[in-house]
């Protein structure tokens, strides 16, 4: 399982005392991706940067090393998009439609996904730690070696998916289904669940521990 990935830039934002990484910038003229001087929050041209990044994603199927941390994505079609080594830390994804979405070594930590249809995705070695998923369809996806730790997943479907070696440690699962999934070596330690179905999944090969009262942790 080798992945060849150029990681997103680790140039630090120039705003005093900010330690976040600078967001990517896209030039329509030269059609090249570069690094902006600031993170999205501190960029004086944030709305322009947002437009450039939408444009870059629209015009390219293979997206490598993009840093879009903090940006909101709405009503977009990510069908056949391939993200390699990208940073979507703290992003918002609303009403995204995709089939055959692919991701390797990308970070979606603390992102918010709502009302997205991500059928048949192939996401590997990708982190969604602390992300919120509300009304998300991952049905028939390969979600191997992914980090869903601390995520809050509600009214979503992982049916018919391969979750091999992924981790849902301390996740909150509500009204979510994992029917007919491969959950071999998948870790569900200390998660809380409410109306969750694992019907027809290989639960004997998954790793579960005692449930915890989520609220007691904080």
């Amino acid at each position, binding site marked *: 399982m080798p992945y060849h990935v150029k990681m997103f830039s680790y140039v630090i934002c120039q705003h005093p005392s900010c330690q976040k990484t600078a967001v990517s910038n896209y030039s329509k003229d030269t059609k090249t991706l570069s690094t902006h001087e600031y993170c999205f929050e501190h960029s004086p041209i944030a709305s322009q940067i947002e437009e450039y990044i939408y444009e870059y994603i629209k015009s390219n199927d293979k997206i490598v090393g993009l840093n879009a941390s903090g940006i909101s994505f709405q009503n977009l079609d990510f069908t056949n998009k391939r993200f390699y080594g990208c940073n979507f830390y703290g992003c918002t994804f609303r009403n995204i439609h995709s089939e055959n979405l692919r991701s390797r070594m990308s970070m979606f930590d603390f992102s918010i996904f709502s009302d997205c249809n991500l059928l048949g995705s192939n996401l590997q070695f990708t982190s969604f730690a602390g992300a919120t998923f509300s009304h998300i369809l991952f049905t028939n996806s390969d979600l191997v070696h992914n980090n869903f*730790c601390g995520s809050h997943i509600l009214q979503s479907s992982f049916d018919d998916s391969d979750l091999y070696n992924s981790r849902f440690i301390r996740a909150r699962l509500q009204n979510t289904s994992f029917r007919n999934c491969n959950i071999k070596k998948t870790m569900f330690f200390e998660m809380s669940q409410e109306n969750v179905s694992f019907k027809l999944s290989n639960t004997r090969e998954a790793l579960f521990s005692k449930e915890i009262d989520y609220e007691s942790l904080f």
Partner: protein
Amino acid sequence: MKVYFNLSLEGFSNCYVVTNPEEKAAIIIDPGTVTKEILLQIEREQLNLEAVLITHNHESHLKGLATLRKIYTPKIYAADYEVADRETQILKDDGILRIGGLQVGYMSVPGHTPDSMVFKIGKVLFTGDALTASTLGSTTNTYAERMLLAAVHNKILSQHDDTVIMPGHGPPSSVAAEKNFNTSVVVRTVSGLDDKG
């Protein structure tokens, strides 16, 4: 900086190849196995394998080192002399190296093993088995566990929240995620063990 990820099916450990295309330099971290893809990558891009970094002396993290030493002559950095005997560049405590135009930070994080090291390149931490997504590395006694917790707290969780964690096993993570969801770290905070440690 480019990072290549390679899953070793023997021991399910993660091997990383970090390259600096401008200097045509490569660094391999934890060569659990050396695959054809890794070698082809180095050869196709005509990279110079400058160094191999070993997070700890466990076979699943260095079994491929023997193969690499037959082909290349990289410097081998580890905290344990036995990794490559006289060829080992011994690392102690914390410090910074300059390898292939990249700044490589190293931090001693004993607990899982006495020789556990964490490497930092850019905004990426290669944590070996000291810290994996939401779990700490296994330890053999409570003293080692406390020592590991203290080191993880002081050296890893003190990094900026969006620092990426590339562990020795399992999926990637970030410092913010570990601060919030790591089963050992959060229990520690809740039960107030900080003061005792």
